[in-house]
């Protein structure tokens, strides 16, 4: 009995059916949009949601010395980790005292970890010692969520520190993090000095990833797709060094009382045999985490143990630089071996008198090197001219970096006309400036690394090599051993010029009363040059450069001792022992049978020089 004409009318029924269809269409269109049009994008989002990549750190490459001896190893390091969601706040005080860190700092780290994921273990302290681990084990039931993970750190199995050569790693700085590729994550260790820094991309290997499924809270549910997408970590490449670990250790022990540097190099190729800078530090204190106080102590120590004196100092070379001028004069034909001057013990230039230590009388170039006659070189400088001197200095590698692989280095300072013009103004400097340069004093500044390169060039007949510590890289993935390309350049000296200069250097060491006599090696001829760098701030710096054996040089060495006085007295004996150790494999001088080598000496030396 429907009274109302409108009640359930066909139009109203039709309208409602249309409403239902419109609703159906709207829902289906949206469904189509989400599931078919946006599927790829939303599927990716869903995967990002539920899949986490756990980083698997690769094993860092090992370092071996020239004889295949393990130099830098990798060992276990224990990091304390904590799952923020499980950790009870009331344990902060106890845990911080065990970890020896400020409670606020611990709280901060827990908070930061919680922000990342409350359910994933986060590293709270790196490289803890066994005592700390034991203390944590003892409180295992109290410390819910606290655990440790094994990571790798550097281990130094030899007696050598080689701290400046090897360098160290630190947690990557935020600034560096933003400028490098995507590889690094906060908390990663990255090489910041020495070989660790230079070869970081080769040493570090490649991180692996383990993909796990997580739920909405970040709890790990299990492996993702049965681990099909996991990428295993790739081990870092090994570095095969030219360094002789035994030699390095000896050089360091010889330097314990000095501040300075010793650099030894293979003159046939430029491979470094030892690189010592003193004072240094034990690199194992930097292998895991360096305590802040220790780090600031290293940085503020007035002896500057972090400063690499082998590559960064810039002192005048003193008389060791005289061969540059001799080479320039001989090679340019300005003088020959018969050119002589009479040394009266002083040289007047303008109204100034430049003194010599002795009155040497009549000397030629060989004798001038042997006796280190300043007057000879004062006069020679004026004959050769500034620009030619600068040119030969440059050819020997001074005033420029050597492109070594051992880390930061100085260009040194090789004065030139342009330099003086810009420094003092055109015409405002005189030839008098040059007199000091002739004997390696004044503004010329060199590093021990540059000096060993120079010594090597004098040893090998004029080839200037790029000094390098790494000879070969062993890729553990491809099992291939690849050489590091070595560069070299020629000074351009004729054999005759070389012979004269080397003769002078031989006499420095081997002739009776030679200034470098303390660099003699039992049974082997050695050649070299002493130097003393005038130091306006204190005691002079002692220099020695040399090589051995004379006829077939296998080692070149540069020694620089800060504030130690005469090169011949202090630096030369160290150089002698270094070369002896390298050539014999041990120090034989204190052994009962020192082989007399006088015969060989006599054969090589020209009688006229006595």
């Amino acid at each position: 009995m429907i009274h109302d004409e409108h009640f359930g009318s066909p139009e109203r029924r039709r309208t409602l059916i249309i409403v239902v269809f419109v609703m159906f269409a709207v829902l289906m269109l949206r469904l189509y949009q989400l599931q078919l049009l946006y599927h790829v994008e939303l599927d990716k989002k869903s995967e990002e949601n539920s899949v986490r990549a756990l980083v698997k750190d690769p094993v860092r490459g090992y370092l071996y010395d020239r004889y295949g001896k393990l130099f830098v190893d990798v060992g276990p390091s224990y990091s304390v980790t904590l799952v923020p969601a499980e950790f009870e706040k009331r344990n902060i005080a106890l845990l911080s005292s065990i970890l020896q860190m400020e409670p606020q700092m611990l709280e901060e780290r827990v908070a930061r970890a919680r922000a990342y994921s409350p359910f994933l273990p986060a590293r709270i302290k790196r490289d803890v010692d066994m005592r700390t681990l034991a203390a944590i084990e003892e409180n295992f039931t109290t410390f819910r969520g606290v655990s440790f993970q094994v990571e790798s750190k550097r281990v130094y199995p030899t007696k050598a520190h080689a701290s400046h050569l090897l360098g160290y790693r630190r947690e990557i700085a935020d600034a560096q993090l933003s400028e490098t590729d995507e590889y690094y994550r906060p908390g990663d260790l990255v090489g910041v000095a020495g070989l660790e820094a230079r070869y970081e991309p080769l040493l570090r290997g490649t991180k692996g990833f383990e993909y796990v499924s997580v739920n909405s809270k970040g709890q790990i549910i299990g492996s993702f797709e049965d681990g099909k997408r996991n990428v295993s970590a790739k081990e870092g490449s090994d570095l095969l060094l030219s360094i002789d670990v035994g030699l390095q250790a000896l050089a360091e022990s010889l330097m314990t009382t000095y501040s300075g540097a010793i650099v030894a190099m293979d003159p046939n190729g430029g491979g470094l045999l030892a690189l010592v800078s003193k004072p240094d530090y034990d690199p194992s204190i930097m292998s895991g985490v360096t305590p802040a106080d220790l780090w600031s102590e290293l940085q503020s120590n007035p002896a500057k143990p972090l400063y690499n004196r082998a590559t960064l100092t810039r002192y005048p070379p003193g008389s060791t630089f005289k061969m540059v001028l001799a080479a320039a004069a001989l090679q340019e034909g300005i003088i020959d071996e018969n050119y002589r001057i009479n040394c009266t013990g002083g040289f007047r230039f303008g109204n100034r008198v430049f003194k010599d230590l002795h009155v040497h009388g009549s000397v030629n170039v060989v004798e001038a090197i042997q006796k280190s006659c300043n007057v000879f070189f004062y006069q020679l400088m004026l004959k050769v001219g500034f620009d030619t001197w600068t040119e030969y200095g440059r050819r020997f590698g001074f005033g420029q970096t050597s492109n070594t692989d051992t880390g930061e280095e100085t260009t040194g300072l090789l004065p030139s006309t342009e330099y003086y013009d810009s420094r003092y103004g055109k015409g405002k400097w005189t030839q008098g400036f040059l007199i000091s340069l002739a004997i390696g004093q004044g503004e010329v500044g060199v590093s021990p690394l540059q000096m060993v390169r120079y010594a090597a060039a004098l040893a090998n007949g004029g080839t200037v090599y790029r000094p390098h510590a790494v000879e070969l890289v062993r890729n553990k993935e491809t099992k291939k051993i690849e050489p590091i390309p070595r560069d070299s350049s020629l000074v351009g000296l004729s054999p005759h010029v070389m012979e004269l200069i080397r003769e002078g250097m031989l006499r420095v060491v081997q002739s009776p009363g030679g200034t470098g006599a303390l660099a003699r090696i039992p049974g082997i001829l050695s050649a070299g040059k002493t130097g003393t760098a005038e130091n306006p701030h204190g005691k002079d710096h002692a220099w020695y450069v040399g090589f051995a054996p004379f006829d077939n040089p296998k080692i070149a060495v540069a020694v620089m001792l800060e504030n130690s006085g005469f090169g011949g007295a202090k630096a030369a004996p160290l150089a002698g022992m270094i070369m002896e150790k390298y050539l014999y494999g041990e120090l034989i001088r204190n052994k009962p049978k020192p082989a007399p080598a006088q015969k060989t000496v006599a054969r090589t030396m020209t009688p006229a020089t006595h």
Partner: protein
Amino acid sequence: MFDYLKEYFDAKALLICLGLVILGLFSVYSATFDVGAAAAFKKQVVWAAIGLVALFIMAFFPLKTLQRISFPLYILNLGLLLVVLVVGERVSGSKSWFGLGGSGGLASFGGQPSEFAKVATVLALSSFLARTSITLSNAKHLMLAIGIVIVPMVLILAQPDLGTAVVFFAMVLPVLYWAGASNFVLAAIVAPIVAAAGALFGTLVFLVSLLVSGTLLYLTRQNRFAVAVAFGLTLAVGLSVQAVYERMPAYQQKRISTFINPGSEQKGAGYNVYQSKVAIGSGGFFGKGYLQGTQTQLNFIPEQWTDFIFCVPGEEFGFVGASLVIGLFTGLLLHGVNVAGLSKNKFASAASIGITGIFGFHVLVNIGMSMGLLPVIGIPLPFLSYGGSALVANMSMVGLLMNFYANRKEH
């Protein structure tokens, strides 16, 4: 025998309902797979069984008796709503629950009287409209009809449960339309809703919504006095909603504000919608496979087994499964309108539309919010969402539709 069945037994409604219930059981099992699946699933199966019993009772209940007892039933439900307000348990901020063990959530066994209030209100309203003396052009009768709906609605709002309260509005509109209400009457009901909704979006939107409401009323060409009264009412409702909104619990304010700017907080209130969209979208055409949906299984969608259950078929059965769900619901709605049209009994006819309206609103709003089309106002998806009272109430309503179908030729 078969012809008799075809004539008097509404197999279509039953099959659609059973299809949805089974899909629902699968979905609940999947959604609660690692958070007490066995317990939740078993309980839902028990509720489905109880629902089936309720469905058959409703399907075979004498129609005349039903019509007669609809008012007492309605009064009884109002009483229950009052009682639950006083002694009910608070579940996620609302007092809407009779606890019979445990305290809400998956582990408890209880009842929500508001679910049954929907059915009782539909029946009472239909019974009222079916009276021969009643005509909707009479303002007093109209007010009474609206009053029948307003009373339980206010009680439910007081719990406070915004979502369920809104359902009452969605139900009354098609019923009045069906019963022959004029355009002006419908506009006078819709206008305050538009104004109320506008009031939540700030002053500018509120003013625009008032303008729209006014225009709507004006276009019905009713006399100016009536339009003025209706507009005044609209204004009053809008202003009071604005006042109420400021006193609302924060979570409901947040739900509303999230709708205004859904992308704003991925981990905040918009998080559910975002994760829900990701779940459905990542399902693709065939889905990730049953129990293989990462969004569902790894609990990326909070409380998924209730309001966001649509993600389960969406993610695990893909476009195929989700379309099936939407298709079954559409079939049920069309069937409901059909039964209403066939019914010679005014009470049955109006009640069919009321039931269809309730289902339609739930489906549209729930699936719409799961797909990020509509605001998250927390109403479940019939037959699929976890929850006993709703399942029993919804199955009872299908039983009623079956009843009305079987008795369609009765006056």
